[in-house]
C-alpha cells in the first residue's frame, strides 16, 4: 500500500484541490482582505497576523470543519497505479455484479418507457408549468394515474442478486466445509466480531450515559441528561464538527439535533445553497421526468400510508423531485461502486440521471427540518455519505453486502441454536432483516428511536450499527422465534418493531450478553 508520507501528501493535495475555488475559499479571502483594515494587522508579519485573526474570528474553525468533512466522506487515496474503477471498488467480480444489476434496472426502465410510450424526459408545456408552480407546496393532493407504472425493483430482488454473488476464485465446493457460509451471503468479506464491535462502539457501553436509556422518566435528569444538554450547547457554540461527531455518539437532545446534524454534515444554509435549491426547483417545474412518476407512486404507497410520515408527503415530493435532478450528487460516484446510467441525445452524451432511491429515508428528516432547502441539503449529504451504500454492491465495510454478512455472522456466533432452528424451518434470518437494513430501519421503528439510531450512524460514520441492531432484535425475540415453524410465522413475530427501544437492545447485545 502507500507508505504514510506519500499517502498524507496525496490526501492533502486532494483536499486542497477540492476546497480551492469553493465558496468557503472566497469567503476566507474576503475576510482576510477585510482584516487588512484592522489596526492589529501589520505589514511585516502579515501572514501571521492574518492567521491569528482568522483563528479568533472563528473562520479557522470553519476551515477545519470543511477539511474534516472531506476526510470523512472520501476514502483514503489509492495507489497512483490504480485505475479509477479500483477506487470505486477494488474487487473485480463485485464491479461486474454491480454492472449487471445496473443493466437490469436500465432494461426495466427502458422497457417501461417504450411500453407506455413516455419519453424519459420532456419539457412541460407552459400551462402545466404554471399549475405546478402554484401547487408546489401541496403536490400531495395530486392524483395522477399511476396504475401503469410498476416499481422497478423490490428489496427482495436485490437480496436475490446478493445471494448469488460468488467470487470465482473462491473454493465454493459442494461439500459442506468451513468455507461455505450457513447464511445466504457467500462472499468471504472481513466482518467484525463482538470484541471488535465492543471496542469500536465503546461509547455505547454500560458505564457511559446514553440518550435513549439514561433520559427515561425513572432516572432523575441531574444524573446525566442535564449535563449532556449543557455539553451539547457548548459544542454548538464552538461550531466544531469533530467534537459534534464525538458528542452525538451518546445521543442528541431533541432540541439540538437539527443543528448538530447540520454541523456534522457541514451544512450551512448559505445564500448560494438556497439559490441552488431554487434552480433545482425550476428544473422540476420546467421538465418532466419519467422517474418523477415512479417517485410519486413510491411515496404514495409507502410514506402516505404510514402513520407517522403521511404529514410530510408534500415535503417528500419537493425533496425527491429535486434530488433526481441534482448533478452534484454525481461526485459520489467516484467512490461508489455504482455508475450513473448515461443517455445519448441525438448522438451526444447527455446528463446522467439515476433511478434508485428510497423515499422513506427522507421522511424522518422532515421531523427535524422545516425549510425545504435545508432539508434538501441534509438529505443529499446523508445520501452521499451513507445511504447510497445500501443499494449498491461493494466490498466496503458499510456496504450492504458486508452488513448482511455481519448480521448473519453475529447471529450464528451468538445465537447458534436460533440460527439453526430458523434455517431448518426455511426461514433464513436475512430474509426477514434485509428489508430493515436496506431502509436503515426507517418505517419500522418509532421515529424517536429511529433518530437515536441515526445519531449513532452519524457519530460513528458507519452503518455497521444497523446489522448489530438487527441481530439484537432477533436476540430479543429469540424465545418466541424458537417456537415458530414457518417463515410466515417468523415474519409475524418480527412484523412490528414500533415498540422497541433501540439503545437498551444494542447495549444488552454488545455488552451484557454472556458468550
Amino acid at each position, binding site marked *: 500500500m502507500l507508505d504514510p508520507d506519500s499517502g498524507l501528501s496525496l490526501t492533502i493535495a486532494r483536499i486542497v484541490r477540492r476546497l*480551492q475555488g469553493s465558496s468557503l475559499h472566497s469567503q476566507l479571502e474576503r475576510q482576510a482582505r477585510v482584516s487588512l483594515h484592522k489596526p492589529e494587522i501589520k505589514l511585516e508579519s502579515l501572514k501571521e497576523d492574518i492567521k491569528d485573526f482568522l483563528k479568533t474570528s472563528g473562520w479557522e474553525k470553519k476551515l477545519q470543519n470543511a477539511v474534516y468533512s472531506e476526510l470523512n466522506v472520501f476514502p483514503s487515496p489509492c495507489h497512483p497505479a490504480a485505475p479509477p474503477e479500483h477506487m470505486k471498488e477494488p474487487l473485480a467480480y463485485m464491479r461486474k455484479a454491480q454492472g449487471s444489476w445496473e443493466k437490469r434496472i436500465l432494461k426495466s426502465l427502458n422497457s417501461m418507457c417504450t411500453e407506455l410510450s413516455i419519453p424519459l424526459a420532456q419539457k412541460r408545456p407552459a400551462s402545466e408549468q404554471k399549475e405546478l408552480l402554484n401547487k408546489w407546496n401541496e403536490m400531495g393532493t395530486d392524483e395522477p394515474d399511476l396504475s401503469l407504472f410498476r416499481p422497478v425493483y423490490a428489496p427482495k430482488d436485490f437480496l436475490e442478486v446478493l445471494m448469488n454473488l460468488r467470487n470465482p476464485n473462491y473454493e465454493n465446493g459442494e461439500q459442506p466445509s468451513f468455507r461455505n457460509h450457513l447464511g445466504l451471503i457467500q462472499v468471504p468479506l472481513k466482518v467484525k466480531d463482538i470484541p471488535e464491535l465492543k471496542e469500536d462502539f465503546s461509547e455505547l457501553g454500560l458505564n457511559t450515559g446514553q440518550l435513549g436509556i439514561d433520559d427515561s422518566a425513572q432516572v432523575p435528569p441531574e444524573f446525566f441528561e442535564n449535563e449532556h444538554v449543557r455539553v451539547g450547547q457548548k459544542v454548538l457554540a464552538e461550531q466544531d464538527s469533530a467534537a459534534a461527531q464525538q458528542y452525538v455518539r451518546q445521543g442528541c437532545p431533541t432540541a439540538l439535533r437539527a443543528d448538530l446534524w447540520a454541523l456534522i454534515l457541514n451544512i450551512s444554509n448559505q445564500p448560494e445553497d438556497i439559490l441552488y435549491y431554487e434552480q433545482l426547483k425550476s428544473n422540476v417545474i420546467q421538465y418532466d421526468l419519467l422517474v418523477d412518476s415512479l417517485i410519486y407512486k413510491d411515496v404514495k404507497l409507502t410514506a402516505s400510508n404510514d402513520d407517522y410520515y403521511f404529514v410530510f408527503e408534500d415535503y417528500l415530493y419537493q425533496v425527491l423531485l429535486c434530488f433526481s435532478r441534482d448533478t452534484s450528487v454525481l461526485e459520489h460516484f467516484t467512490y461508489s461502486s455504482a455508475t450513473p446510467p448515461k443517455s445519448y441525445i441525438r448522438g451526444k452524451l447527455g446528463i446522467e440521471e439515476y433511478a434508485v432511491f428510497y423515499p422513506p429515508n427522507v421522511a424522518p428528516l422532515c421531523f427535524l427540518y422545516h425549510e425545504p432547502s435545508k432539508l434538501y441539503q441534509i438529505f443529499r449529504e446523508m445520501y452521499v455519505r451513507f445511504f447510497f451504500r445500501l443499494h449498491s454492491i461493494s466490498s466496503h465495510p458499510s456496504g450492504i453486502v458486508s452488513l448482511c454478512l455481519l448480521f448473519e455472522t453475529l447471529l450464528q456466533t451468538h445465537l447458534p441454536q436460533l440460527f439453526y432452528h430458523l434455517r431448518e424451518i426455511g426461514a433464513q434470518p436475512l430474509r426477514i432483516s434485509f428489508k430493515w437494513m436496506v431502509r436503515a430501519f426507517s418505517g419500522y421503528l418509532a421515529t424517536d428511536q429511529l433518530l437515536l439510531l441515526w445519531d449513532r450512524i452519524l457519530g460513528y460514520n458507519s452503518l455497521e450499527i444497523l446489522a448489530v441492531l438487527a441481530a439484537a432484535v432477533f436476540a430479543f425475540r429469540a424465545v418466541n422465534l424458537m417456537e415458530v415453524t414457518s417463515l410466515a410465522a417468523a415474519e409475524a413475530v418480527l412484523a412490528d418493531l414500533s415498540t422497541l427501544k433501540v439503545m437498551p437492545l444494542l447495549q444488552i447485545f454488545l455488552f451484557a450478553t454472556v458468550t
Partner: protein
Amino acid sequence: MSGAAGPGRAPLPCAARAAAALQLPGGAEAARPGVAVIDLRFPRGGAADVHEIVFKNFYTAFLSVRVQRAGPPGPRRWVTCLRDHRLMPSPHTEEGSQDYFSLRRHQMLCDMEQVTALRFILRQPSPAWLHFSIEELQVFPPAQKSPQKDFPSWLSQLTPPEQPASPHGELPDPEKVSTEVQQMWVLTEVIRARQAAARIGRFDVDGCYDVNLLSYT
C-alpha cells in the same frame, strides 16, 4: 502495462516468468502447495538499480523478495531483501486481495544496486482460494533529478535587504514593495496553474433534458 509513473520515471524493461508452484520431488498429483515463485530478469543479462517495485495483488497473502546482484564472477548468491511482507491482513477474507502495492527502497533489507535478477516468493496459506499470484509487475529505477517545474524556492524566501534610512518617513520602502509584489505575482501564477476541483455552479448541457432512452454502456 499501464501505470502512473512519476515524471522522469519509466518502468525498466524486464521479462517475468509466470508463477511456478512449489513441487515436492517425486510428488505427482497437483496438490495446492500454497507457495509460488516468480522470477524476473533484465534483458540481455543486464543489471540495473531498483528503487521501487509496483504490482497488483491477486490473493497472495505473504510476499518475500530475493535479489541476485552483479558481482565478482562465480556462483551468484540470492540475497533476501524482503521477508514475509504481509499483503492480506486476514488471508481467509478479501481484504487486500486485489489491491495495488508499492515496495520502496527503504523497506528493503539489502542494497538494490546492480540487480540482475529478482525472485518473488508468494505464499497463500489459506486453502480457500483457487489461484493466487501477483500481476502488473513493474520495476522502477531511482528517479533522475528532474528540472524544477515549480517556481524556485529562493523566490519565496526573499529577504528584504538591509533597510537604508528612508528619506521619506511615510512612503513604504520601494525595494520591499517590489519584493512583495514579485512574490504575489509568482503565487498567482502558481494558483492559476493549479486546477480547482470545486464546482463553480450550475452546469447544464443544452438540450440535455431531451432524452429518449438510457444506454447500457
